[in-house]
């Protein structure tokens, strides 16, 4: 079977996740991600027609809260971890999206 994930795909996913890859890492990732997808292929070969898609392992639904305000953080607390603050806001370095 040809590799499910090629070098270009690894680099694209890394870019989307804003990950920097060291030399050689792309090749390792290629093998590891392909391995994961190959395992998924094994699962997909099973007859699962009667099994509904499962997004949660918990037998829970409709967990909701009432629409009642709770105290927020103070502005000082909210901004405490910010590396830099500009006019009461979290400063963003100049960026190109």
């Amino acid at each position, binding site marked *: 079977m040809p590799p499910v994930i090629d070098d270009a795909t690894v680099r694209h996913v890394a870019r*989307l996740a*804003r990950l920097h890859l060291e030399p050689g890492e792309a090749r390792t990732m290629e093998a590891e991600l392909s391995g994961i997808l190959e395992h998924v292929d094994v699962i997909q070969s099973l007859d699962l027609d009667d099994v509904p898609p499962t*997004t*949660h392992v*918990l037998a*829970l*639904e*409709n*967990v*909701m*809260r*009432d*629409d*009642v*305000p*709770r*105290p*927020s*953080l103070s*502005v000082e607390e*909210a*901004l405490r971890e910010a590396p830099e*603050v*500009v*006019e*009461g*806001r*979290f*400063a*963003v*370095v*100049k*960026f190109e*999206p």
Partner: protein
Amino acid sequence: MSAVDLSRWEPVIGLEIHVQLLTRTKMFCGCALSFGDAPNSHTCPVCLAHPGVLPVLNREAVRLAIVTGLALGCEIAPHSQFHRKNYFYPDLSKAYQISQYDEPICVGGHVSVLTPDGEFEVGITRAHLEEDAAKLVHVGGGGRRAGAESSGVDFNRGGTPLLEIVSEPDIRTSAQAGAFLRQLRSTLRRLGVSDCNMDEGSMRADANVSVRPAGSTELGTKTELKNMNSFRFLERGVDAEIARQVAILEAGGAVTQETLHYDPDLNEIHSLRSKEEAHDYRYFPEPDLVPVVPDRSWIEELRAGLPELPVDLRRRWVRDLGISFEDAEVLSEPRELVAYFEDVAGRVDAKAAANWVRGELRAQLRELGQEPWESRVTPAHLAELIGLIDDRTLSVPLAKEVLAEVIASGAAPAAVVEEKGLGQISDEGALVEIVERLLAENPDQAAQLREGKDKLVGFFVGQAMKASGGRADPARVGALVREKSGLS
């Protein structure tokens, strides 16, 4: 932009509308919603995405989504699910937005849109819940990202509950797009779902636009026109995009599928994002939120509690009361105005009622910053005033004066007429005296009138109104002027 020959092309338009829901708190945490408060004064570890926090769904947001779905004729999904939509942007604290993907809460509805030229149908593909992003403020560079010296994030808006409503591509003109959006706004306001202020961003519209050769049933390549923040810009933006696509196609080119921004100042369309990055959101089910499985009895309770929707109200008024669509549109929100107008219309001719409520009453009250239902003019007062015009006690100008007095004092119109001696002169002899005197005092005009210069009737009516302090009946005076000049 040059005019487009639309006889050969058919535009196909669908809208995606985001509205902020009128909850008290955010979608997944207890922070209060706010607009215009100090930056970052309504945040917590959840909406700031500190490690290890868990979202909990706001029941009221779910209720508002269901109410909207029912009003738009949608099916409320027996099972719906949240997904993570992944992308990096500084206004998104978690680097993903919690949204809904293949299991939205409302699916498959349709609405009938009322216009002065009749009704048209628009399918509703879906409506789903999601959270709003934070507000990114650019300092320097004219407030735009490009050229900004620095940018700052205010997370007060981050996590505000949003409902995204997606229409089918059933719209054919920019005017229809505007009519659909206006009616949707009235509906959502009537339901108390959103205040839908486009200039404050609580209602935002994107348009998917394509064109195809007239008569074709295949869809052309579409573009997405983002975030038009007024009805006028929506209509102008859609028109500009239709013109741009037709020009490309007529020149033998092909439309590129992309996201566009409409610049209302320049009436120009710009590309917004690079194509290779668009729509690679890698949705996956949100593991921190369990499915929503609304109780059928809850849904039926909400269905039973739906008010009469603006479209039904307007249709009923146009049909049963005979008022114009424009009057019906203006008078059908807010609900206090609906009650006020219906009260007046139940007492006198509905067209006159619509005219006075929509026109003079609102105009005079606007000066005072009052609404009809808060004013001292009760529906009974207004009906009485209209009655005084009908029985010719008051001319329209006098009635306006009386109205001002009712607004000021709260006295009944008939009492104001009595007290101020404002009633029209009903004594025929007195009117004849005024007319004869004016004809004598203005011999030149009187002579021209006798020669058949009919326009001068108006001159004498005006003089008579002045001489009588507005209390002469203009129609009666006109007739007398003609009679005394031998014209009739």
